[in-house]
């Protein structure tokens, strides 16, 4: 396959910490292989910055194979960049053309405060999970995996929701900074399994309460979250979450 090198211009959001105001800084990056990942391209730039004595650009990443949800970046007006159903770490430079200017911004939401440059604190998601995104099981002998029959369609739907990696792109994409796609994935994952049944009502009520406390907005079903989600979590889960909420709210003591 033809191999190309790209010369690019970057506009990167730089911000020292949560208490300072940031600004865009322009960089030229040259001789970038189009087989590199987007993060590798930033690594190349950072090495150059270190050599010249400048502060390297802070950005989040961990697995770099599209499964952990740690990478972020709002690239040219879309969370995780131009490709569909893809994380930033799996975005490759062949998505861009020689001479392109690429604008890189952090996730923007007051519930995700900026730590530094492109790094934001997504601890709010952890606290939402702590509020109910689990099943309580007393330990004992491991039961046989096949002793609990589960309808295949339900298992599949639950698994599709469990695909959510908690990256926060849905919040970044939403004009309301709503975390509903994330929350609906977590609630739909457990609401469709027998293991999730005992805590079904308290789970949805507590998780919604925590989401509101964290300062996310209200969903207005625009669909931007679904279009940006790297794991293609369906917006139908949000309707399911609404049903779970209504049912729990009406029948809880």
């Amino acid at each position: 396959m033809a191999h190309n090198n790209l010369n690019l211009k970057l506009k990167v959001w730089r911000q020292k910490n949560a208490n300072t105001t940031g600004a865009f800084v322009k960089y030229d990056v040259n001789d970038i292989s189009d087989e590199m990942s987007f993060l590798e391209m930033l690594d190349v730039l950072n090495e150059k910055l270190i050599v010249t004595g400048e502060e390297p650009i802070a950005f989040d990443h961990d697995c770099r194979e599209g499964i952990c949800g740690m990478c972020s970046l709002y690239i040219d007006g879309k969370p995780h960049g131009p490709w569909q159903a893809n994380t930033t770490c799996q975005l490759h430079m062949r998505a861009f053309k020689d001479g392109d200017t690429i604008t890189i911004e952090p996730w923007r939401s007051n519930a995700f405060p900026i730590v530094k440059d492109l790094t934001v604190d997504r601890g709010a998601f952890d606290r939402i999970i702590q509020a109910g995104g689990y099943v309580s099981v007393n330990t004992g002998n491991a039961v046989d995996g096949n002793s609990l029959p589960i309808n295949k369609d339900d298992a599949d739907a639950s698994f599709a929701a469990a695909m959510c990696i908690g990256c926060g792109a849905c919040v970044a994409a939403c004009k309301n900074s709503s975390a509903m796609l994330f929350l609906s994935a977590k609630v739909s994952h457990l609401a469709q399994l027998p293991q999730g049944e005992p805590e079904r009502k308290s789970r949805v009520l507590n998780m919604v309460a925590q989401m509101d406390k964290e300062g996310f907005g209200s969903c207005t079903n625009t669909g931007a979250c679904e279009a940006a989600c790297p794991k293609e979590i369906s917006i139908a889960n949000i309707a399911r979450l609404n049903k779970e909420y209504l049912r729990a709210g009406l029948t809880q003591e």
Partner: protein
Amino acid sequence: MSFKHMFTSSVGKKLVMAFTGIFLVLFLVVHAGLNACIWANDNGLMFNKAAHFMGSFVVPRVLEIGLFVGIFLHIIQGYMLTLENRSKRSVGYAVNYSKGSKWYSRSMALLGTLLLMFLIMHIYHFWTPSRLGGIGAIQGLKTFELNGTEYHNLYAEMQAVFQSPFVVILYVLACGSLAYHLAHGFQSAFKTIGVHNKRYHAIISSIGYGFAILIPLAFAMMPISFYFNLVK
């Protein structure tokens, strides 16, 4: 969990929007149906009788109070929701993400504001002269008698109001706003009250788009019919 808390959480506020929105959709069906009487081509007799029934019979009058409460809730909640949602992102993006969603789904408050402005004009044109006699007298709303009962001649009022091309254009533009507000709102409301089943959602979406086209079209045809003397 109290009912108050249930309807004031982020999801609860959306439930209020959805329930009042669906109520307003039902109102539109009734309103469009009654107004369609103008096309009976009987010089407004059937229409005036229908309007008289709505204004004098207790059931529609009670429903009318519900309608005002519903509209009020919908508007207040709509603005509060929009302002609150905007406050959640103090620093915006340099490049906006507009590809993932339809422009009208992002512009519900703007479309709603256009509707509100229309609504004020509309109430001034027809509701106050008919229901609050005083203003009606100022406007000189005509009446006529039939079998010993006095009727407001709202048909004549429509004829008079829709002589102005300016008013006709405003009404038609408002119908456009309504169409887009409904194109998103109709299906969104059902998602909000929890319809996630794909088969039902597909049916609701189709009905929603059909409704969003047909109802505003019917309303837009009313001023147009009067202006071009298509009704007699």
